[in-house]
């Protein structure tokens, strides 16, 4: 019933005691990193500052900006030699955010993912096909190690090549898949093209979907198309990746693993905790990470705690589906994108000026990204090929930056909102 019953059904009160102990341990490690060492000194903070979990509010927040400004080793609590893996964000403009793991961290991460998958119903008799990018993206190796820890047979199928994915499913009798929700719509189309019905022609019984915003209606549609239950996964690379919060068989919110992540929900404007059950920004403190602990890390993801106990018996509180962001980041095809990344690429092209609009739309079940830019009068020569080449070049350089190929749409000068003030730069009309 549970992967780690001693943790998963630990009464809340005892869970708080465990958190307080682990928080103290985390602080005593964090002080060894250059960033927190300086910060603690400045604010007169030490492990003794924190007697209970509520004392966490005496610590300042950590932001993505802090990670970037202290790139690459400013948060490491151990010499570089002690770390054995890193994952970092995509992009070539500015510093990426990088997270280091030592042996303990990778093992505890794998265990959290195994616990999450078990919670959704995966067992060691399952064949688990992991359809997502491997490499720096945490969904690849994160689910690989987690599903292996659980004892499932794992197919590291990685992303793309839909025909081959279907063949793997048929050859090895795949019973469970992890992927981004939008891919499942494409996959279903491919089944239809082959004259196959996944409900009849596969052994699928479990989907794990995440890394991309989606609604409950989309999830229900996926379940209907495949005749398979789909479970919501939540994670972020700063908190390892997958394995932060996960749905159980009741699909009524995501249990956040409170033994590993001290979870707060704050008002992004006042930075004060919101009243229980109200929506706000998720803030995490790692409680079981050695090489690179993060304290009060602002995720920018908006959600709320769901009230009441879960019939599954797990005591870890449940988060509602992520409803949005408190910054302008968006996610497409599983990639996190900040408009600023696209803006910086556009600045290299004098031909198109600096005003732009990013449109996110769904065509035939696929999410597409279009960047509208204004062709500058003085660069126009009347040559259609030159403009097509320019569009291709911009698309190529944006792709290098965000890992998603955009459609570039040249528009007439003056037709986009000016860059002054709070112009709306992202129009998200994806089907929800």
């Amino acid at each position, binding site marked *: 019933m549970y992967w780690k019953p001693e943790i998963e059904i630990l009464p809340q009160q005892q869970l708080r005691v465990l958190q307080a102990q682990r928080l103290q341990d985390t602080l005593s490690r964090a002080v060894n990193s250059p960033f927190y060492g300086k910060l603690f000194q400045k604010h007169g903070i030490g492990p003794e500052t924190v007697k209970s979990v509520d004392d966490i509010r005496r610590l300042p927040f950590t932001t993505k900006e802090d990670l970037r400004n202290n790139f690459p080793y400013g948060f490491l609590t151990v010499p570089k030699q002690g770390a054995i893996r890193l994952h970092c964000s995509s992009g070539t403009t500015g510093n990426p955010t990088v997270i280091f793991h030592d042996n303990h961290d990778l093992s505890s991460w794998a265990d959290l993912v195994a616990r999450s998958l078990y919670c959704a119903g995966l067992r060691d008799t399952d064949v688990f096909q992991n359809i997502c990018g491997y490499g720096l993206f945490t969904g690849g190796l994160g689910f690989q190690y987690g599903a292996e820890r659980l004892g499932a047979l794992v197919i590291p199928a990685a992303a793309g090549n839909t025909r081959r994915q279907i063949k793997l499913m048929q050859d090895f009798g795949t019973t469970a898949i992890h992927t981004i929700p939008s891919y499942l719509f494409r996959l279903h189309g491919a089944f239809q093209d082959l004259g196959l019905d996944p409900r009849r022609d596969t052994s699928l019984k479990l989907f794990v979907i995440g890394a991309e915003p989606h609604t409950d209606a989309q999830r229900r549609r996926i379940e209907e198309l495949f005749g398979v239950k789909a479970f919501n996964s939540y994670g972020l690379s700063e908190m390892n990746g997958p394995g932060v919060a996960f749905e159980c068989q009741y699909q009524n919110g995501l249990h956040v693993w409170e033994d590993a992540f001290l979870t707060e929900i704050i008002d992004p404007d006042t930075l004060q905790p919101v009243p229980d059950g109200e929506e706000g920004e998720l803030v995490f403190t790692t409680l079981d990470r050695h090489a690179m602990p993060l304290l009060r890390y602002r995720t920018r993801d908006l959600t709320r705690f769901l009230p009441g106990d879960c019939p599954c018996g797990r005591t870890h509180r449940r988060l509602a589906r992520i409803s949005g962001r408190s910054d302008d980041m968006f996610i497409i095809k599983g990639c996190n994108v900040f408009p600023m990344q696209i803006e910086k690429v556009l600045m290299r092209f004098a031909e198109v000026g600096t005003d732009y609009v990013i449109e996110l739309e769904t065509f035939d079940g696929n999410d597409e990204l279009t960047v509208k830019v204004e*062709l*500058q*009068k003085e*660069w*126009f*020569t*009347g*040559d*259609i*090929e030159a*403009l*097509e080449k320019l*569009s291709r070049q911009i698309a190529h350089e944006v792709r290098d930056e965000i890992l998603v190929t955009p*459609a*570039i*749409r*040249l*528009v*007439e*000068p*003056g*037709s986009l909102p000016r860059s002054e003030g709070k112009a709306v730069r992202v129009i998200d009309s994806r089907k929800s």
Partner: protein
Amino acid sequence: MIAHQVSIFLENKPGRLEKVTSVLKETGINIRAMTLSTSSAGWGILNLLVDRPETACKKLSEAGHPAVLREIVVVRMQDRSGALHDMLSLLALAGLNVQNAYGTVLGDNKTAILVIDVEDTEHVQQIFDSAGVQALTSKEVYGL
């Protein structure tokens, strides 16, 4: 004197073409011939053969449109079957790739013109010259 057409960048959207023609109407520009090439990416280039290309280009530019003058070669043909083929054969024989070309029949119903838009207009002139085909002067083009 080399003749010019006006090339205008346009979004492929209702009303965009009309904005251009309204500027030309206000300025009293007469359009002799036009083509519109659209890319699959939602925009296109409008090429206009007009009586006063410099004024047209200036006014369109002032109205905010990316507009430029592009050199063209204009030749007169007979309005008969095979005439266009004869002209294009000359260019094909010379190994020249035509990026954009268009034509129109003149009022006398006996002659037509062919407008050729290529990077190297001088080369085209030479090809026609050596074949004994007379290209129109800019004055002739604008006075059509």
